[in-house]
């Protein structure tokens, strides 16, 4: 038998071998930039070198035909190089400004929207969902496709007060992360346990330890070692499901969608902030999730109309206040909006400052 091939532990590849020559030549020597039109960045280097970047949206989960088409476009217009952004947009770099318009025309003709720059709504960052995840409450690619169809105009314009980063997540682990608007699965019922399987599939002590509410305890059910959930304590988060698949948390009706706003990673102006709950109980309504799209559009429209230039979602709400947010969006405010987790006192209004 031949010797097993051992891996070459090469780690993160050197990017210079795959980098557009204009970026390589001016690496660390850029001086300023501007956005001559939506979807286009123009960077100028200290020595006068210039590069124009055209940004286009993709579906992230791409078939090889789509990738080869994107590569063909790069060969024709952009010297055979591209890069991807953290939000799955593709970027083409050109050193001849005359190539910008034909490149945009080509991308549009092939069905790739050009935009996502400046104060636009860029591509929604998304996760795996039903296509590939082992614990999803919903799909990801489908939610994103449905929403980007609805928000398409805002991707191709820069008409927002500041950038709007939208994320989705298919379970409460929230791989999609913080967003100006976050669209996340929210379970509403405790897990349904298949007691025949627990003993063989789950490492019971680590499942007990995983529960944030200490609601799980070992139990003998029908003479078999299993786990039981104190349903009065259970917060329906689904944290037990990944380490113990017989504790099924997903449910076609009771797995709902919640919307959160005001998450921000940057330290720009205000400090980074977590997103806050604004809407819940929305149905997991595949294939186009119209109820979710409706709430997202309400929030986007109120923000677009009312926020001042450069205010991110969280900064706008800080200024106008939560009463005004719920008034402008028409969303109901309930007892569930009031945090009761550890440290929640900080989320209450400990002042005489009120808004009417």
């Amino acid at each position, binding site marked *: 038998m031949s010797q097993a091939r051992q891996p070459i*532990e090469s780690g993160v590849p050197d990017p210079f071998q795959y980098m557009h020559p204009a970026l390589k030549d001016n690496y660390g020597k850029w001086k300023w930039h501007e956005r001559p039109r939506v979807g286009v960045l123009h960077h100028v280097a200290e020595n006068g070198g210039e590069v124009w970047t055209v940004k286009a*949206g993709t579906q992230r989960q791409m*078939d090889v035909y789509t990738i080869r088409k994107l590569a063909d476009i790069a060969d024709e217009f952009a010297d055979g190089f591209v890069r991807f952004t953290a939000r799955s947009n593709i970027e083409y770099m050109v050193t001849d400004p005359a190539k910008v318009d034909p490149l945009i025309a080509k991308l549009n003709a092939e069905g790739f929207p050009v935009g996502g720059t400046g104060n636009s709504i860029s591509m929604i960052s998304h996760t795996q969902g039903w296509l590939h995840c082992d614990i999803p409450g919903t799909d990801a690619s489908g939610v994103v496709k449905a929403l980007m169809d609805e928000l398409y105009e805002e991707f191709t314009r820069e008409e927002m007060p500041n950038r709007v980063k939208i994320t989705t997540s298919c379970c409460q682990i929230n791989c999609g992360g913080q967003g100006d608007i976050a669209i996340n699965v929210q379970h509403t019922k405790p897990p349904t346990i298949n007691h025949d399987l627990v003993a063989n599939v789950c490492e019971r002590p680590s499942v007990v330890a995983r529960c944030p509410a200490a609601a799980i305890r070992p139990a003998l059910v029908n003479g078999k070692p299993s786990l039981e959930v104190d349903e009065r304590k259970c917060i329906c988060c689904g944290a037990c499901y990944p380490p113990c698949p017989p504790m099924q948390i997903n449910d076609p009706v009771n797995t709902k969608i919640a919307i959160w706003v005001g998450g921000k990673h940057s330290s720009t102006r205000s400090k980074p902030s977590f997103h806050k709950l604004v809407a819940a109980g929305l149905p997991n309504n595949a294939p186009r999730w119209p109820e979710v799209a409706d709430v997202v559009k309400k929030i986007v429209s109120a923000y677009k109309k009312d926020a001042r230039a450069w205010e991110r979602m969280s900064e706008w709400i800080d200024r106008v206040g939560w009463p005004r947010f719920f008034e402008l969006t028409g969303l109901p405010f309930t007892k569930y909006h009031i945090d009761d987790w550890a440290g929640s006192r900080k989320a209450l209004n400990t002042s005489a400052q009120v808004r009417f």
Partner: protein
Amino acid sequence: MAKKMPETPLLDQLESGPWPSFVTGLKRLANSEDKPYANMVKSLLGQLEHSYETRKGYWKGGTIGVIGYGAGVIPRFSEVSDKYPESKEFHTLRVIPPAGMHYSTKLLRDMCDVWEEHGSGLIAFHGQSGDIMFQGCDSANVQPAFDKFNEMGFDLGGAGAGIRTSMSCVGAARCEQSCYDEQKAHRMIINSTLDDMHRPALPYKFKFKFSGCANDCVNATHRSDFAVLGTWKDNIQIDQAEFKKYVADRGVKEIYEQVINMCPTRAMTINEDNSLDIDSHSCVRCMHCINVLTKALSPGKERGCTVLVGGKRTLKVGDMMGINLIPFMRLETEEDYEKLTEFATEVLEFFAENALEHERLGEMIDRIGFPNFIEAMGIDVTPNMVAHPRTNSYVRMDGWDEEAAKWSERRAPAAE
């Protein structure tokens, strides 16, 4: 014999509309009758449609890997393989992209060729951790596919309780706001911790992320255990002629409303002659004015990074934002980058030894207390680490005089 295309009335509804459709892409693959993956993708479409109908997922994990590694492949076995047999095994290979996600078209085509031969033809650029996700491979093809990527110079990324694949922003490659060489720090740190990525044995996952400034384009602050964010120590560089031009073009009112008044620490004033003053002691390096007035303002010349630690999402104690552990570390020389890498390794080692099972760095720091953590890391305290000093008097402070003396000693000018 060609397998019949499944009926997908729900997924079909995701083919209309202006945004590029992943469903149309999947169908292109499913209809590639001359390719080995056609039936697998037909079967996948069938299962996905079934998920859309029943609103549930049908994948379960398992144990699949490549020789020598304990991570990097995400195993997926179908729970409904009796109905959709050809996509019974549909594993993902997480592959680390070039830092900054730069690609030549030759590289993209070579990757497509490998995935046509061994996989489903479906690739995601990129997953949330920053991997290229080659999705859809049966168990037998995992090793040969990996061998080909590996020979091309590519390696598997992280999964499970280990170092995860990292991300760095475009940075110095195409951004004047870059305060350090992001891809250099990214590669030096990750490539020195590969053992913990490929053979995961940490208490839980550990993520590094690298952004060139406080705009944090790769979301390091909240989404990494160890966030390296570019910053500077001296003054913002002002081109007064360009600033005056902005005032002339946009009007003083707009500059006030959109720049001066939005400075979080009110550090800016416009002088009588329309030139700009910035009080650098008040400036918090937030980037807003530099973002808006790109021609007039740029980060200072003394550049480096701020390190935040402990960011993570909810599970299990609630969200945590990264904490400022090192307000400024110079990143100019090779030695500076080695120092950062060494420090990252020390934090990682401390985490490996002291965190409990399934505990992230931020949770560990909360449990042992931030003062104990910085002491263990050999870092001096600075007021830049806190939003404000403690408000609770329940603390034993009989070491006060010694601690106060340390502060005075550090503040004193170095002895000649």
